[in-house]
């Protein structure tokens, strides 16, 4: 089966909707990189290209895999240079600093030239997969394409070279950006005000829960418990504990939704909040959400929206209208800012009117004369959760994305994300079971590799098989309530050709599992390395490099290691 044919045997036609713009509205414009109307003449076959497209990624260059930067070190080499401090008086370190505070031994940084430095990190880059290289259907992570105009904007000196302690009159453009982004997030969530301090989703969760805690305490009604569904992200219960609450877990219904009866049972006046995603982690919209809100509010609890899955309903439905009181958004998911190999992200928190006073201070306000300033006079604020203003550079990128798409484009984002997910599910459901039977799904879906497990190929084997076929695997083994879970989130930015070639690879793997699962156990064989001994990594912890002459186990403390030694290459 080639990618020009879809799962139902229908001829797939190129259409603009399948190659959505990242920097413009859904129709009427050609997407960057998307060539509307070009025939699919070069559709790749199944197993399009393995990850190891670059021959030296696996280490064929210079006789092995890329060494550590420390192993490239050669005494006397350096990339850095500094001015000689012309005219500045020399300082005698012995006089300037008391003995005992002065550094006694050289810091063992690598000694490399700029050439070595550039080659090293370029080669490391070649050993890494990314959205810029290909499809990354990691469920719950929204690995959409990251438009480059946003990168250019964030790099402008007027943003990148701003000091966070500069007085407001010097940073009016930055404050205006924050105020306009806040307004847009309030419109999209149906809530009243936002803070940008949280640096990531989990940070937003903690902030929101501390606000909920302060709210109940301000009403002389302190509460101890937070309810979460059994399918929740691990950050939810971890944040609950950090905010000083206890977790109560509520089971999902057979349809994969919140079980209203079970929820009612655990709700009482000790419940501070119910924390959920919608769509939930199975990719299903909680259609009873209004009733859920009624129940939670009925006992005086607050409804918390984990924005991990907001991409599905962007501009289509609003958490505030569903009854949510607190929402955190993951701008590094929904607003297309790059994930950076695990951050930086941005997890702004948006709250309803009755919680606005509790937001972290300071907040941006606009004065009558149209100027912006920080307002720190917030007596009911929970205080600061970030040293400064959160990940401002990420907010610049998110604002660029907002402008590019506009309201109309954002609705289109949700529509294409949901369409792509349902299309992919349709193609995959011939070979894979759905974790929970409900359809249509929203922006993602959870398959179960139960059938393939019976044939001898587990979810992990399928994931590793995908690596050999040139794709990043879906999220595996999450959510926990689905056996052998494969959580697939294609996002809106992928073309029909890409979805089809991924489906072809998945179906080929299913066929392989049925015929002979053995090769899948060996996968990946084309990546820079094969499967890793993860148990060894944990058992014999090596969390840093040591010079060859120095014991390299974690038990050795460099403080006891004597004088510094020059690393040698």
């Amino acid at each position, binding site marked *: 089966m080639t990618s020009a044919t879809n799962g139902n045997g229908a001829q797939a036609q190129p259409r603009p909707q399948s190659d959505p713009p990242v920097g413009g509205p859904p129709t009427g414009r050609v997407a960057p990189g998307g060539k509307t109307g070009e025939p699919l003449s070069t559709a790749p076959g199944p197993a399009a290209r393995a990850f190891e497209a670059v021959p030296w990624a696996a280490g064929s260059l210079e006789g092995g895999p890329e060494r550590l930067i420390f192993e490239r070190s050669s005494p006397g080499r350096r990339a850095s240079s500094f001015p000689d401090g012309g005219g500045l008086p020399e300082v005698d370190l012995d006089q300037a600093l008391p003995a005992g505070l002065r550094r006694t031994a050289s810091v063992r940084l690598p000694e490399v030239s700029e050439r070595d430095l550039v080659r090293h990190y370029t080669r490391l880059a070649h050993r890494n997969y990314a959205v810029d290289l290909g499809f990354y259907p990691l469920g719950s992570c929204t690995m959409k394409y990251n438009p480059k105009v946003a990168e250019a904007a964030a790099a402008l000196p007027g943003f990148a070279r701003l000091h966070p302690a500069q007085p407001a009159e010097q940073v009016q453009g930055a404050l205006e950006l924050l105020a306009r982004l806040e307004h847009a997030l309030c419109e999209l969530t149906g809530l009243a005000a936002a803070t940008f301090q949280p640096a990531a989703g989990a940070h937003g969760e903690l902030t929101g829960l501390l606000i909920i805690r302060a709210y109940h305490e301000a009403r002389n009604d302190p509460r101890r418990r937070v309810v979460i569904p059994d399918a929740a992200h691990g950050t939810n219960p971890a944040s609950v504990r950090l905010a000083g609450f206890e977790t109560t877990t509520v089971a999902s219904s057979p349809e994969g939704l919140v079980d209203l009866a079970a929820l009612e049972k655990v709700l009482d006046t000790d419940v501070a909040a119910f924390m959920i995603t919608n769509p939930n982690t199975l990719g299903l919209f909680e259609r009873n959400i209004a009733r859920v809100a009624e129940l939670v509010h009925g006992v005086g609890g607050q409804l918390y929206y984990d924005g991990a899955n907001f991409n599905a309903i962007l501009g289509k439905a609003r958490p505030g209208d569903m009854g949510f009181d607190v929402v955190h958004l993951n701008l590094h998911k929904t607003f297309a800012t790059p994930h950076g190999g695990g951050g*930086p992200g941005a997890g702004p928190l948006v709250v309803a009117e009755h919680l606005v006073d509790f937001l972290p201070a300071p907040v941006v306000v606009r004065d009558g004369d149209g100027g912006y300033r920080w307002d720190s006079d917030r007596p009911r604020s929970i205080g600061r959760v970030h040293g400064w203003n959160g990940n401002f550079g990420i907010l610049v990128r998110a604002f660029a994305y907002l402008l590019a798409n506009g309201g109309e484009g954002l609705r289109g984002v949700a529509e294409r994300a949901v369409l792509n997910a349902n299309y992919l599910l349709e193609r995959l459901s011939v070979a894979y079971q759905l974790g929970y039977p409900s359809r249509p799904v929203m922006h993602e879906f959870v398959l179960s590799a139960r059938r393939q497990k019976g044939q001898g190929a587990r979810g992990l084997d399928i994931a590793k098989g995908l690596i050999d076929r040139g794709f990043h695997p879906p999220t595996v083994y999450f959510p926990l309530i689905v056996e052998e879970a494969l959580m697939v989130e294609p996002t809106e930015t992928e073309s029909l050709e890409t979805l089809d070639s991924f489906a072809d690879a998945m179906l080929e793997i299913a066929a392989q599992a049925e015929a002979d699962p053995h090769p899948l156990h060996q996968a990946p064989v084309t990546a820079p390395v094969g499967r890793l001994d993860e148990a060894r990594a944990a058992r014999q912890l090596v969390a840093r490099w040591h010079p060859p002459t120095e014991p390299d186990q974690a038990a050795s403390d460099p403080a006891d290691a004597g004088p510094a030694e020059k690393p040698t290459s």
Partner: protein
Amino acid sequence: MLAALGLDDVDQLFQPIPSDLRAPADLDLPRPHAEQEVAAELGRLAARNRHLDELTCFLGAGVYDHYVPASVWYLAGRGEFATSYTPYQPEMSQGVLQALFEYQTLISELTGLEISNASLYDGASAVAEAATMAVATTRRSELLVSAAVAPRVRELLETYSRGLDIKLVEVGALDGHTDLDEVRGKASDQTAAVLLAQPNFFGVVEDVAAAADLVHAVGARLLVTFDPLTAGVLEPPGRLGADVVVGEGQGLGNHPNFGGPAFGFLACRPEDVRRLPGRLVGETLDTAGRRAFVLTLQAREQHIRREKATSNICTNQTLNAIAASVYLSWLGPQGLEELGRLSLRAARYAADRLAAIPGVRLAFPHQPYVKEFVVRLPADPAEVSRRLVDHGLLAGLPLAGLAPGLEDGLLVAVTERRTKEDIDRLADALTTVLADLGATDSDRRREGEEVAR
């Protein structure tokens, strides 16, 4: 695609959303913009800010104007790093994993402690994570916090302590440094940890070793928030007895970015590794016996341990940590020392020049400092700073409201980027501004000296 699904309209896929929960069509959102319009609008907003290429920066207080070499973001900004996710699939993520393993080694070297995690949000939240760790490892709940730790960091600790079982107790500052006698008096068998900053908020270098002895005598931990850019001249706190060393990594190759993104780092002793928050990369072998790297000890983390995790952190600041690795490799051991010395020379020259201005004096003239110091001014520091902007200068951070007794204080930071000419310009402009404000007459000067005694 719709046809393949047997649908006419994409809206049919949104049928699970009840109609009364559909968003109104008239949301107040921008119209779609073409790329050049986006670039123009962001350019317009950026131009409304006065940035550090326009103003000569002596403002620090945790974020510093260190030079960012061209190679840092040329490399860290590569799409293979920037557009990847957390390395859950190690076979196709060796680039990020190896870069983080190198990062951990570099942070270990700078802090003098064996184990570093793979980054936290920022320096302030890293302090809260360190406090959580100390409480968990000692099973005690009191944290003694020096008044010479940055107010922002103490505010954040206050916020975090609402949810945690941590009791914060302030230890005063005396002549710009933490009052160790007060530490001795307040530390007890209830004390989980003592928190110091090195150098501290006032730029003063603390006697970490003496503090460590006091803290360890009661079985508590010493937590130090450390400026890694001073590691070329200062002994790393881990070598002086600190048990957990954290800090703000912005100066390591990251632009000020109006406060973020940069990153926080955290390093600890091997025996505390199971209480470590966040990601940790370890070395291992693949099936063919090749060296490879992988996220390890994940049983500490939220996605495995859920409410029993050591922290809730998931997404961290990986890309900024990679930038720091590139930066430190660019720097090399010689570069780190040269940078530290250059900064120290410039800071001392600046302190001498400023203190020579009538009415201006150092707040803590007898304390050691390496890149930042406090001057007392004979006029309102906020007003003085405002006027110095007209001279193209960001003079520093006015301390009114931030440090009791230092209402006339200005915190001045001098990095390796500040030249003799920059400093002369600051001193000359300050002289002019003070004269304009009529704040240099000899009476005021004498009055100031009286107060100093």
